[in-house]
């Protein structure tokens, strides 16, 4: 199971990058097709708010690849150390 967790990390990193690229391209296309203030605001908010989430998924994948999820903490002391 730990090997699956580890190798899936690569997939999560790929999904993070691909999904954000698709979102960003769609935002650009939508804004170019209808450059009104409404469209710009809506798509800018989507692009801004999803950037930290995509980075989060990237870090999640990286941590999985590094084996951080092989053993989940059993007590808060393990988190604090």
């Amino acid at each position: 199971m730990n090997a699956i967790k580890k190798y899936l990390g690569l997939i999560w990193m790929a999904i993070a990058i691909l999904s954000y690229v698709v979102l960003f391209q769609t935002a650009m296309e939508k804004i170019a097709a209808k450059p009104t203030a409404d469209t710009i605001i809506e798509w800018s908010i989507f692009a801004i708010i999803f950037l930290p989430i995509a980075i989060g998924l990237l870090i999640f994948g990286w941590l999985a690849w590094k084996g951080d999820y092989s053993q989940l903490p059993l007590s808060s002391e393990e988190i604090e150390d």
Partner: protein
Amino acid sequence: MTIDKGQMRKVIFASSVGTLIEWYDFYIFGSLAPIIAAQFFPKSDPTAALLSTLATFAAGFIVRPFGALVFGRLGDKVGRKYTFLLTLVLMGGSTFAIGLVPGYETIGFAAPIIVLMLRLLQGLALGGEYGGAATYVAEHAPEHKRGAYTSWIQTTATLGLLLSLGIILITRKSMASDPMDSIRAFEDWGWRIPFWFSVVLVGMSIYIRLKMHESPLFMRLKTSGKTSTNPIRESLMKRSNLKMVLLALFGATMGQGVVWYTGQFYAQTFLENACKIDFEQTRTILIWAIVFATPLFIVFGNWSDRVGRKWIIMSGLLLAIVAYRPIYRTMLDLTDTATSVKDDAKSRIEKVIVPLQGKEYSLQTSTTLHVYQNGIEEKTVSTDTLFNSGAERVQFKPKQFKVLPNNVYWALVALLFIQIVFVTMVYGPIAAFLVEIFPTKIRYTSMSLPYHLGNGVFGGMTPFIAVLLGTMYTADPLVGLWYPIAVAGICLIIGTIYLSNRIDPNVND
């Protein structure tokens, strides 16, 4: 640490009522969005229309997670009790104030700016409330009842939606004896009543919460000087805790968010826009489904104390993924009139002309009614302005909607009920799950962030992305469902593989 049952009931009641009211306050703005837009954000003023977009998007997506950080930090430093008391005051005050703001016609551009600011405050307050209430209850609950007791907090978002729908429907119907006059009065000024009503609820809730004591676990930390000095930094910069924040988001709350919003918001939008069902029937169908399904939050919360949180949440996600397309296909088929034969003998056109006092024109309302053999009545209402001078009439876009017979109505209630059962499975145990994976000193901050990113961002995006997909791929009326299905699918895989089903015996650390 245990407290007696009577004291525990007070803790649950004080926390749940306040959270319910906060959800009510947040939803009435959303439910009344078209009326609020007409009052404060006229499309004739492009800047006001822009502020409307900001009010819709920013409050849900940006400010809620930001509120989770701001109030989470406060809750981990100052205490749970005073923080979620503060969020309640902030939410109640801004909601009441929205009901007082004069319209765009009276004070001009100041109106949309004030309303936008108040809406952002609402989003901020909501971001801080849930984590506090869930933490507060969980830190009082014994280990074997943590899921059961925190599931009361989990009912509040759904009950807040129910309360907002109920209050709006009742007010809309009670403004005048004539139904059309009542709707007009409601759209003119009666929409303010649900906002004013909030102050009564908030007042009661503040009174109840003021009598409560601080969480015993937090008090112990504070007394021993072990509270966190910088909870945000500890939550997000410490690798061992960040990995749990990310796991909570991608393995649980993002899937929970899309299932929650699909079952309770997208379903309503779909009934109204794709199936073209009457405004009131759409709301009452959702109300019945919520009423029947809400007890299941408690059932699944309780059950999670015995079998663990993980598999109940994952089963809810799996069932939603498998069932969404068949459910929505059935909703479309049940309300379809294209394949049903029209009963011409029952079809009719009614025209009513109302002269307007002091105006040089009258309003003509034409209602065309078609009755189909499957019992569905299809109404097309068009309004024309007839000028006394004989000038060319002004025609408004006709409104078309269907009124359902009893059998179809209850079949739709059943289909929405099934979707809300999925909601209760993914949402009922999640507070206990979140509380258990974070330590006491940074719990408020750490659990609030993934919750509001999952629920507010992933869930809140559901209606927008679903509609967007619908405009991009017009051949498939169910294409919008691929968004919640994909997000829930990724969450299901991550949750199944990475999450533990272990119930933490000790959250006192």
